[in-house]
């Protein structure tokens, strides 16, 4: 086992060690001290962890799990079905980001110490994905509800958090446990996670050897041009969500031909080649190539055709264009201003409203704006379509509803894997072609710079971010 690993990791805020309050940015911080019920590998497959087996009933309304035995939390409490029930209730009743997604779990029945059944109010095929996130991480039931859990973790995970040597909200140090019940996933005796706000400092840290790994997202191109060893994959799909599909604020957006016309105004290849400096790929769908429901043919459906866009607008009754607002963040400006230019060329004025990060998501979900710039990082097709395109989806604040999409989504909940993929593909096509609810422009790249002498990543498609157990000792170890 290698001695240590130092990783720079961006984080919107310092991690909260209560798994119920964790979000996707904090996974690595939590995964070192907690184990999830299900472990998702870098190729998307699921492996047993604290749950050794799981299955759905034929009607999709019961989810059963078999649990590990003989595992204990840091405080000595035994891990069992009662602990799982307590953790699920903690997430459901809490104020964390996953609370709303656990609402479909109506109740939990402890069958015995190593078996639990979840009764669902509606079929939800995404439970294995959910239980592989921080929401599926198990904390000691005696610590749940205590405010101390936010700063002092109490889990079954492979490392102990060294609060004494750590710097609060900046540098978190973890040391491997000699008696960890599930050895083999982690390969470093000591892990230091440093939170950074500026990717320039992160590039410098890896380039100078001060850090072994760093994540890069907003400045991937710059990191790539710095000469450090990189691994990347498409992560976010940059898109303009046309939220006011009913035209309640901007009547023009209520016209599907107008929304389709806007799609033809975007020079997607130009964005990738010039603004993104060749990083990423043009796209017209929110799902990524390896995801269920992705349709390769869809990517060439909307060509760059300004004349066609103008003609379609004129045919729809808007020969002189119209104006609408889109909420955004200021650090999206480099690309978003190009979008403003594309739309101006067809006579449409998009007024970009920049808000601060602590208002951004709520500005979208709150229905204040008719459109939103949103780089969306889909991780699970069924879940993400549920978050974007259903009447009660959080990113559908005007509650646009399409009977076809609703019906297919309902069917997908209990369909076989093959049938589900086809149904999601149908939804994907309908959203983009028939309804033009979401103008997708390009997929960016997210990735990591690393020192190959110290670390090597496992094979990675970008299905999910690389987690710490995806990093192996490097060539010099």
């Amino acid at each position, binding site marked *: 086992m290698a001695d240590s690993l130092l990783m720079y990791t961006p984080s*919107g*805020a*310092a991690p*909260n060690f209560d798994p119920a309050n964790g979000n996707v940015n904090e996974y690595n911080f939590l995964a070192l001290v907690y184990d999830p019920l299900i472990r998702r590998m870098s190729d998307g497959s699921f492996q047993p962890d604290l749950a050794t087996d799981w299955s759905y009933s034929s009607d999709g309304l019961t989810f059963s799990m078999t649990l590990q035995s003989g595992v204990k939390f840091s405080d000595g409490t035994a891990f069992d079905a009662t602990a799982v029930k307590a953790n699920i209730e903690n997430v459901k009743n809490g104020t964390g980001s996953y609370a709303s997604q656990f609402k479909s779990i109506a109740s939990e029945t402890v069958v015995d110490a190593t078996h639990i059944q979840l009764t669902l109010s509606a079929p939800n095929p995404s439970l294995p994905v959910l239980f592989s996130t921080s929401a599926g991480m198990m904390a000691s039931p005696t610590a749940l509800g205590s405010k101390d859990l936010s700063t002092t973790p109490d889990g079954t995970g492979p490392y102990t958090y060294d609060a004494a040597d750590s710097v609060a*909200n*900046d540098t978190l140090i973890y040391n491997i446990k000699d008696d960890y019940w599930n050895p083999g996933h982690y390969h470093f005796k000591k892990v230091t996670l440093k939170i950074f*706000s500026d990717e320039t400092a992160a590039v410098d840290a890896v380039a100078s050897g001060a850090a072994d790994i760093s994540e890069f997202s907003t400045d991937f191109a710059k990191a790539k041009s710095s000469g450090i060893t990189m691994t990347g994959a498409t992560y976010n799909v940059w898109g303009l969500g046309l939220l006011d599909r009913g035209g309640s604020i901007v009547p023009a957006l209520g016209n599907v031909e107008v929304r389709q016309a806007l799609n033809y105004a975007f020079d997607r290849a130009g964005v990738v080649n010039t603004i993104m400096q060749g990083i990423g790929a043009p796209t017209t769908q929110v799902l990524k190539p390896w995801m269920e429901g992705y349709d390769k043919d869809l990517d060439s459906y909307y060509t760059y055709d300004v004349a066609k866009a103008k003609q379609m607008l004129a045919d729809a009754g808007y020969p002189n264009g119209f104006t609408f607002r889109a909420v955004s963040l200021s650090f999206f400006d480099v690309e978003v201003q190009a979008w403003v230019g594309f739309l101006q060329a067809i006579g449409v004025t998009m007024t970009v409203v920049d*808000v601060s990060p*602590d208002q951004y*998501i709520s500005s979208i979900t709150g229905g204040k704006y008719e459109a939103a710039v949103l780089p969306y990082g889909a991780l699970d097709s069924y879940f993400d379509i549920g978050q974007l395109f259903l009447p009660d989806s959080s990113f559908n604040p005007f509650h646009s509803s399409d009977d076809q999409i609703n019906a297919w989504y309902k069917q997908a909940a209990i369909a076989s894997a093959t049938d589900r993929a086809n149904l999601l593909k149908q939804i994907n096509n309908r959203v983009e072609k028939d309804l033009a609810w979401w103008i997708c422009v390009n997929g960016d790249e997210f990735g990591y710079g690393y020192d190959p002498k110290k670390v090597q990543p496992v094979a990675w498609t970008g299905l999910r971010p690389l987690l710490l157990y995806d990093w192996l000792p490097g060539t010099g170890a």
Partner: protein
Amino acid sequence: MIGRIVRRMLEAILLVFLVASASFILIQLTPGSPADIILGTNATLEGIAKINHALGLDQPLPVQYFNYITSLARLDLGRSLINNQAVDVIVVSRLPVTMSLAVLATIVSSAVGILAGAVAATHGGVADRVITTLSGVGLALPAFWVGAVLVLLLGIRLQLLPAAGYTQPSESVTEWISHLVLPVTALALGQVAGITRQTRGSMLTEAEKPYVRALMAAGVSRRSIVWRHMLRNASIPVVTTLGLQFVGVLGGAVVIEYLFALPGIGTALMSAATTHDIPILQGLVVLSAVVVLIVNLVVDVLVVFLNPKARRA
């Protein structure tokens, strides 16, 4: 002198209260909520309302203000709204980093600046012109630019010093120093220039005073006149400048900490501002005010010590 110090301390308490109140009002005026950050892509209005209620952010402003001021009076700076971390823990872990940076930058800049200023004033000619020109260049170069160049050259190209990060002195003193060399240099360069010019100007003024001619006539060595007598008298405005510059260094440390990924008060402030973590923001603003007040008090005491006239005032 004791009475003066006591009076200044009482004024300081009032000033801290005013700063705390002003920061509370200003922060409340900015839109946004930490709930957006906590919930991420699940930040629905319902979820935000639930969190705001749990955190007490939906209480009437006078109630929130009263709770804040009474907590402050008990020296309770509160807890992070994001991860419940105690603000005083954050302060205790981060303040030494910022103070190391600021104090070392001030020591380096004052030592180099005073020496350079004295040499420029007493030697004149080529030495004076070179030092004055260099100090002009130093004043013009922004600290973040100097920092970026140092990182590129010494950190990445030549790999002589770490380009980012921080090591606690308890872990390794040599690593601690090596991590601070580049950021301290970046911060100190502009300060050196200011102190050089101030010292030069003060020394030139002292050189014209009758006591200098009297000492020379009495046969006192030039070295003794310059370093024992002139410099002491010239140092009064220099000390005042140092005090002002230290406050400026604290502000400049925010940018330098960001550039070098140092876990100081500056990076904590920036993170708290973008995540709307109100207790951390308010706590660090009050802390900064306290540090500035302490620095001003120390400067006042030093001036009194150096200038007998001030003692009698």
